[in-house]
């Protein structure tokens, strides 16, 4: 089959590789109908995620049709149209039973390796390095889905693959980010980053009762989508974020702040330049300007929610400021399986059409070019959807 494989920093190619097969009795094989490039794929593309090997197949957002199932699979059958969460979860361990699916004990074959870093193993992820299990991703014609009874969700009639596609990651991720804010009616929420996760966080914040959402980015195309989603756009290259938010919230600051930027924050500020130079000499792994700014801007007693991916160590983290203001932090990989059925229902009921942010529909064969454009934020790229 054809698949997009990682070969080094900013070097991805379409390779011909062996088709996946059933390995374990709870596996299914899915023929990919639609797949997407996630912002977190760019962290791999740009060389910031450890544990990659040449030839690894990328991609953790995909939907398709089941073409084979293992002997123990009960909930899906050949021919079912399914969407697959990016977190691989067994459905049986303590964490899965608590609906903390991304913390699954049992799905990371390299649990000993990641435990050396984190102290405990976390769930395996598709196409996201050997630290997260070494599972082949879904930017391919076919993918093997372990624990298919827990990790495949049937797509109802009336919803097409494109509408269901973002239930794999970015829609639940945005929703969990908003839920982690503990939003109450009347709350003001500020969102850093109007990429796909940020946009879904905006939509979700309103779904959960936020009164106002302030959306911070520097790209007009993204800010326009945020405006269309009901947010108040704020371009940080033209305005002082802290002053504007302070003023427009009557000096109180937002009740909650969402960092949907993560480890590759762009900034021309002093701390941003410091981060960039430290990252170059490998003294830090992450550039955390957006997070620092969110901590300063957030109102007293507020919540900081972090759906943006951080990989390791950040420097100059203003813990004292967070302590003084009594902030609450919530973060982590999304427990997709917890949110997916509810959000599928919202799509089915017409409450939201997740395809609003698709800017590019390309064939999988053009994926290397798509990565390049997306990484450089060219051509007003917000979301690439690929068809194998």
């Amino acid at each position: 089959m054809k698949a997009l494989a990682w070969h080094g920093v900013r070097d991805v190619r379409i390779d011909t590789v062996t088709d996946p097969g059933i390995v374990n009795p709870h596996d299914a094989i899915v023929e990919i109908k639609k797949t997407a490039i996630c912002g977190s794929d760019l962290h791999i593309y740009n060389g910031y995620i450890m544990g990659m090997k040449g030839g690894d197949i990328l991609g953790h957002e995909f939907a398709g049709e089941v073409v084979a199932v293992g002997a123990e699979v009960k909930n899906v059958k050949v021919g079912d149209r399914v969407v697959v969460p990016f977190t691989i979860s067994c459905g049986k361990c303590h964490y899965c039973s608590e609906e903390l699916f991304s913390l699954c004990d049992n799905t990371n074959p390299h649990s000993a390796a990641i435990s050396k870093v984190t102290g405990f193993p976390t769930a395996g992820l598709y196409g996201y390095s050997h630290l997260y299990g070494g599972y082949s991703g879904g930017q391919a014609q076919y993918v093997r889905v372990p624990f298919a009874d827990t990790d495949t969700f049937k797509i109802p009639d009336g919803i097409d693959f494109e509408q269901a596609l973002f239930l794999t990651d970015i829609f639940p991720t945005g929703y969990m980010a908003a839920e982690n804010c503990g939003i109450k009616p009347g709350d003001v929420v500020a969102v850093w980053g109007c990429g796909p996760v940020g946009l879904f966080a905006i939509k979700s914040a309103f779904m959960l009762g936020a009164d106002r959402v302030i959306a911070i980015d520097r790209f007009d195309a993204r800010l326009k989508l945020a405006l269309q989603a009901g947010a108040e756009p704020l371009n940080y290259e033209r305005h002082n974020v802290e002053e504007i938010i302070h003023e427009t919230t009557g000096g109180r600051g937002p009740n909650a702040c969402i960092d949907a930027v993560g480890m590759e924050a762009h900034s021309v500020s002093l701390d941003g330049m410091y981060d960039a130079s430290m990252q170059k000499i490998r003294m830090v792994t992450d550039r955390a300007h957006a997070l620092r700014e969110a901590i300063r801007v957030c109102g007293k007693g507020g919540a900081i929610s972090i759906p943006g991916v951080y990989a390791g160590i950040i420097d100059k983290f203003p813990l004292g400021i967070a302590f003084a203001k009594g902030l609450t932090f919530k973060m982590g990989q999304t427990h997709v399986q917890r949110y997916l059925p509810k959000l599928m229902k919202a799509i089915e009921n017409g409450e939201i059409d997740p395809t609003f942010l698709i800017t590019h529909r390309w064939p999988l064969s053009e994926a290397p070019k798509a990565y390049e454009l997306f990484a450089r934020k060219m051509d007003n790229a917000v979301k690439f959807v690929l068809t194998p």
Partner: protein
Amino acid sequence: MKALTALTLVAGGIGALVMARRATEVVAGNLEARSIAGALIETDTFEEVARSKTINSKLPEVYGFVRDMSMLPRFLPMVKLVNMVDEKRSLWTVKQGPVSVVLDVDITSGPDDDHVQFSFMLHGTALGACQIWLLSVGPELNQTRVTARLKYHPMLHGLVDRVIRPAMTAELDIYLARLKQLMETGEIATAEMR
């Protein structure tokens, strides 16, 4: 180094090299070699590495699984073959890296079915060590805390010990993770990209 670590893990603790010599000094000569390890390990002479996991299965199920010799190769991946000699004694063919050996193993079970002890002797020699699996109910009734302990001789104090001990710890983590996966899901998580 890799070969040394492999040999260590194969024997369940290379400290047994000295232990065996001391064993023959301490224990009057008529004891069978394979029982020496279990006896000496009860003394304070031995260092211990211990790791734990909680498994979402009832204690009798976990006990039955650990006690079932046919299941051993599934969660102790270096064990390739188990031949039962009698109810309490078996021969394990063990392979780790380039090293392949046969271990003579005494199996001791607790009276309350709450622990299993494997006392190893390298077949045909007096080299040995000990692996103990302790089980307890909790934190909930349908869950089991499993502790795997590996006992080895303290001759390895110092640099060698500091190098080998983490390898032993990591190895125990792998055994426990595999046991947990098998008990909870019925399979070992497997990825394609190697």
